[in-house]
């Protein structure tokens, strides 16, 4: 059997695996789209491979990679079941991200096909929109959302996906151009990360915080120079953090801090792909100031709620950063945030806005009473006036009460109580989805 024959046989194997995918049920929507897209890709690959000369080694090498990529995608989705990830949250996330991930192509080809699966633990958070230049064969892009399997109920932590939406947007050429020019350009214009030589000097600064000095000593030779690729990665992370803040708001801040500090309690580690957390938090502090969030509690009349939000702002919006980690000016960050909001608004992705007290207070009260928070009318009305509530406000309410509920003496314990809180919010999202569906049908006259 020569290489070409083997590759054609492998196409058959991938087709058989695809058939097996049909045994399982997935979350609502796009099962058929996914199946049809893969059948098309396989057919096209085979039709190009068939007439290829068996001695054309570069073409055959390319096909080997294509088939391998296809089988990896099929295999991943084959393992995915609704029930392994919070599908109501996923549907809300899809609604948020889809406008941003539309490609500028004719007909239906620009709309991505969204697939979701769960695997592993903390490291698994990811959104992937096929972006590999050297892939031959794509009709509609597959937009993959990966949840950590261990955290399937932890919807409050899933606000971190706001960051991942930024990576997905980066793969759309027009957005990449706009983001480079309007969001990254202000951030890169001045400051200690303005060039590789300045960044290297900044990292070697004797006035850097002690944890940085210790890490430098520990990895002396390996971190002697910051490269341009490294800086590019770091700025992408900064940009994606702004995406998270602008799309998910307060719950992103809390999830971001909770997760990143869990993996790096010092907040000072850096690597080829990510800057130190303290610098990210410093940037987010400027962004919160620009968005007026530290002043938000003053709009709240309920004293308990106001006090809770003040505590939230203190904990998660941060405080004035130290000189070493404060690498951006207020103006730089303000420019970047405004440009990002404009971009999102233009494409139809809604930015987070602080909820009115009339929305937030009922949600918080429901959580304190251990009722899933949603726009449910609990007033005992004969004609319940349920409301459409933004899912991000539900998550925000969850974070506002998180520390309060964790501090209470109870059987569940601190960690267990956080899980219970997340399950309540998860249930709230499901019920809100039901309310939204009913109201939409009623307004559309189909009920």
């Amino acid at each position, binding site marked *: 059997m020569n290489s070409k024959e083997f590759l054609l046989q492998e196409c058959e194997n991938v087709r058989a695996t695809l058939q097996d995918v049909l045994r399982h049920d997935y979350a609502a929507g796009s099962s058929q789209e996914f199946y049809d897209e893969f059948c098309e890709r396989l057919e096209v690959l085979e039709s190009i491979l068939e007439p290829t000369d068996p001695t054309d080694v570069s073409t055959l090498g390319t096909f080997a990679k294509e088939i391998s990529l296809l089988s990896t995608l099929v295999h991943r989705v084959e393992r995915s079941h*609704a029930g392994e990830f919070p599908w109501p949250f996923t549907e809300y996330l899809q609604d948020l991200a889809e406008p941003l991930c539309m490609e500028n192509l004719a007909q239906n080809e620009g709309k991505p096909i969204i697939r979701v699966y769960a695997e592993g633990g903390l490291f698994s958070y990811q959104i992937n929109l096929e972006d590999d230049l050297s892939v031959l064969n794509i009709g509609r892009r597959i937009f993959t959302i990966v949840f950590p399997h261990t955290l399937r109920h932890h919807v409050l932590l899933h606000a971190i996906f706001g960051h991942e939406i930024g990576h997905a947007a980066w793969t759309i050429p027009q957005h990449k151009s706009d983001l480079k020019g309007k969001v990254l350009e202000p951030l890169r214009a001045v400051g200690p990360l303005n060039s590789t030589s300045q960044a290297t000097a900044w990292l070697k600064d004797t006035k850097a915080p002690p944890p940085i000095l210790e890490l430098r000593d520990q990895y002396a030779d390996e971190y002697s120079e910051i490269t341009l690729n490294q800086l590019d990665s770091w700025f992408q992370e900064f940009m994606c953090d702004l995406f998270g803040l602008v799309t998910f708001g307060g719950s992103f801040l809390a999830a971001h801090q909770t997760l990143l500090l869990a993996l790096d309690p010092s907040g000072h580690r850096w690597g080829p792909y990510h800057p130190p957390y303290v610098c990210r938090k410093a940037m987010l502090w400027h962004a919160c100031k620009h968005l007026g969030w530290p002043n938000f509690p003053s709009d709240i009349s309920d004293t308990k709620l106001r006090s809770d939000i003040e505590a939230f702002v203190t904990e998660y919006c941060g405080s004035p950063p130290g000189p070493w980690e404060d690498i951006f000016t207020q103006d730089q960050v303000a420019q970047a945030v405004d440009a990002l909001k404009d971009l999102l608004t233009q494409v139809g992705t809604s930015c987070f806005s602080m909820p009115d007290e009339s929305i937030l207070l009922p949600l918080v009260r429901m959580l304190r009473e*251990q009722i899933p928070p949603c*726009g449910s009318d609990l007033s*005992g009305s*004969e004609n*319940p006036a*349920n409301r459409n509530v933004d899912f991000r406000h539900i998550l925000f309410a969850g974070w506002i009460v998180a520390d309060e509920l964790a501090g209470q003496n109870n059987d*569940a314990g601190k960690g267990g109580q956080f899980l219970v809180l997340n399950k309540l919010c998860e249930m709230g999202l499901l*019920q809100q989805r039901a309310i939204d569906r*009913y109201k939409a049908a009623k307004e559309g006259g189909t009920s």
Partner: protein
Amino acid sequence: MSALVKASILANMAQNKLVVSPIICGSQLGASSIDLRLGNVFLMVRARGIPAVDPGRFAHADDTAGDHAFQQARRQKHERYEASFGHKFLLHPGMLALVPTLEWIKLPANLQGIVTARSSWAREGLSIATASLIHPGYKGVITLELANLGQIPLTLYPGLRIAQIAFYSLSEDAKEKDMGSRFNMAFEPVEGNVAHEDEAFLP
């Protein structure tokens, strides 16, 4: 003990004593009951799961935490499906499924609830296998034991109104110690323990 009429039900809700959330539309409110909707999780016994429902298997369950065979059998007893809105679930004749309600229920100390099937579904062969008694102080979704007593499969969709709950006032408030832990909230159906506290009568 007396059944609550609609006005009393609504008054209890207005005073934040009784919670049924969400009530998606006013027509769920009957003269003395509230319609409940189907949730999204379906737990069904696997035919190949275990040989019999034997109380002896459940006895001393806490001692078997490290017993792989026991834990595996427990986990594989049921098949779990999760269906989003708009996706159907077929309940075949003779099949039993444990399904949560969409609604979250919270009962005060002086009320208990009784759940029965809605008559429209009962006439199609759908049975809520037992009249479920919801004890005072209960907090969570209600688990419905759905059985198809008819001859043809029933197509069910999450969100459909499938059951109803009536409320009864008690002679006096139930004591807190009798109402279970405040963290004992039900988010989805779980299998029961038929041997609980009856180990004395098992070999």
